[in-house]
């Protein structure tokens, strides 16, 4: 029985090693489709926001922009996505904390407009809706900056080599602070 047990154990181990192997060949391969590329980059940006992903984002967006030039609604989306991307690139950690999620939702809608076979009118409408949302978001960005500046700045740490991005750290700090405040209130 022990024999049997250890042989399963071996087989199991090798299975698990295979599954959880850090094989880079499984990493998202470079696609020909700029939309797919962009999607992968956007997902990555949710995870970690650095110059590398932002540059890749802006350059894929440019390619896509060239392909969609004829389509008014899609061009509007691309313009918005580009503006937000450039804003993120210039502000990084100091960007409005909801910027990445705003970008993500914008991208999702853009993708839908590309892929779902929407009619012209519907596409234009959806683009217009997002222009409005974008305007609102711009307002919250402008309101966000001054309040942040008036707070005593948290000690900034040099951004580590490859660790969490500053944006993520800022988010985490904020969540933790809120939680601590809540915990103290409860006591």
């Amino acid at each position: 029985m022990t024999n049997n047990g250890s042989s399963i154990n071996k087989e199991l181990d090798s299975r698990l090693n295979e599954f959880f192997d850090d094989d880079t060949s499984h990493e998202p391969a470079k696609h020909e489709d700029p939309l797919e590329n962009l999607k992968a980059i956007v997902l990555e940006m949710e995870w970690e926001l650095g110059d590398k992903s932002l540059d890749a984002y802006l350059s894929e967006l440019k390619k896509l922009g060239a392909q969609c030039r004829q389509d008014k609604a899609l061009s509007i989306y691309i313009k918005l996505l580009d503006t937000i991307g450039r804003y993120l690139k210039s502000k990084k950690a100091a960007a409005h904390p909801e910027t990445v999620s705003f970008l993500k939702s914008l991208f999702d809608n853009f993708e839908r407009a590309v892929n779902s076979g929407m009619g012209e009118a519907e596409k234009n409408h959806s683009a217009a809706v997002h222009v409005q949302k974008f305007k609102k978001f711009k307002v919250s960005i402008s309101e966000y900056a001054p309040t942040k500046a008036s707070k005593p700045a948290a000690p900034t740490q040099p951004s580590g080599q490859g660790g969490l991005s500053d944006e993520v750290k800022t988010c985490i700090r904020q969540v933790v602070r809120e939680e601590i405040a809540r915990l103290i209130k409860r006591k």
Partner: protein
Amino acid sequence: MALINPKKREVQVKIVYYGPGRGGKTTNLEFINEKFRSRIKSEMVTVKTYNDRTLFFDFLPFDIGMIKGYTIKVQFYTVPGQVKYNATRKLVLRGVDGIVFVADSMTLRQEMNIRSLENLAENLVSFNKNIETIPLVMQYNKRDLEKEGIPVLPVEIMEKDLNAGLKAPYYTASAVSGDNVAVTMKRIISMTVMSIREKLELGGSE
């Protein structure tokens, strides 16, 4: 209880990520789901409230392939950690085969970790299961916060608080960066499958 289908030669095991609210259970599964996306053929299901709290559970199923002629399907669940959701936690725990207890290393969470572990023990009793015998892996999560200057419990304290009697294998981890997330998962799969090996009719398979 693991579902074994000898006809289809398929085993389904259920592993639950348990622990206090905001401890990082969902983040664990999300990391795995992202990182090993190409190997996981199914979708992760997650039901969250507006501020990212798990409302019901997260669910991530995948096959790890064949072992001794059986296809092993693993289903991962997370429970909602918030104290008020105990009925849901019990529901999710039904039929569990293995548990990862995700403890929050923040010093402020010391008490919540202990209470959540007690709650796990109680809930298991209601299913006639025993926390001391069920496959269990401890994960001391959010170790990265230490670098941020946030007070974090020393591992020895966490061990004493949570694992002195249980002596389960433990890992320090950072679910946001993925440190030890896959290792934790590998360990619990391995322990869980080993625990049911006698139930698989393996004797004659070699």
